[in-house]
């Protein structure tokens, strides 16, 4: 039985080698070459029309050595907070805990929980409170953070936070249906995160 193992393993790995990992892809193409060639065969006199692919900025190739800075794009639905800003590190509030992202971080998709996002550039630290969202860290040291609401910490009113926390803790104890309990729990989580953002 084990005599077959090397042959089966070799077959499995050769199938996997047909696809490359996203960590070492070359730059993405800017035009669909097979479409352009097929067009030229049929209509050689007119230029092929542009496809959406040629209007997009191509994905840059993964650099062979780790870049010195992390490029961060931090967007909200109504505004772009940081656009291609080069920083040293960002700490994102992932559901699995505070995650520090340095240049050369492994490609990751992280769901964010309500918490503080801090952007470290030299000696400056800018902190935002993020309500929830996602962070996509690509292999070429570009991080895209998308959130629904993100506010600098000094715009949060401590009195409203305390009141909200008290309200929702009370709602949690009196909630009856699953949905009410879930909403009250969300309220408690968000307000406690806001509280620790103000005091921490």
């Amino acid at each position, binding site marked *: 039985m084990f005599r077959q193992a090397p042959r089966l393993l070799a077959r499995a790995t050769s199938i996997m080698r047909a696809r490359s990992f996203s960590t070492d892809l070359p730059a993405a193409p800017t035009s669909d070459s097979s479409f352009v060639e097929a067009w030229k065969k049929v209509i050689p006199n007119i230029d092929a029309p542009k496809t959406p692919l040629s209007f997009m900025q191509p994905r840059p190739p993964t650099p062979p050595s780790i870049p010195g800075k992390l490029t961060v794009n931090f967007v909200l639905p109504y505004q772009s907070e940081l656009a291609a800003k080069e920083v040293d590190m960002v700490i994102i509030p992932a559901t699995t805990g505070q995650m520090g992202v340095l240049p050369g971080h492994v490609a990751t998709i992280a769901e964010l929980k309500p918490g503080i996002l801090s952007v470290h550039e030299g000696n400056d630290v800018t902190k935002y409170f993020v*309500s929830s969202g996602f962070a996509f860290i690509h292999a070429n040291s570009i991080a895209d953070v998308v959130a629904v609401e993100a*506010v600098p910490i000094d715009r949060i*009113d401590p009195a409203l936070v305390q009141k909200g926390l008290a309200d929702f803790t009370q709602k949690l104890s009196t909630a009856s249906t699953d949905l009410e309990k*879930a909403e009250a729990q969300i*309220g408690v989580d968000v307000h406690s995160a806001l509280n620790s953002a103000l005091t921490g």
Partner: protein
Amino acid sequence: MASAAGSSAAVPFWRAAGMTYITYSNICASLVRNCLKEPYKTEALTREKVHFAVSKWADGKPQKPTIRSDTPEE
């Protein structure tokens, strides 16, 4: 082939209660908006305004639409 484990992933409490991620995310965002200091709070609440009209169709004709709107009807 490899479907031995059915749905063994731990679901977050809101999904277990029947809520979708978008609902969860919007609730979190509106709670944060309600805890802002004054000039920012009024700006943020304008961002929450929703306006949509939904019509169900029956026999190829739209029925009366239900309109959900935070802006006063003109």
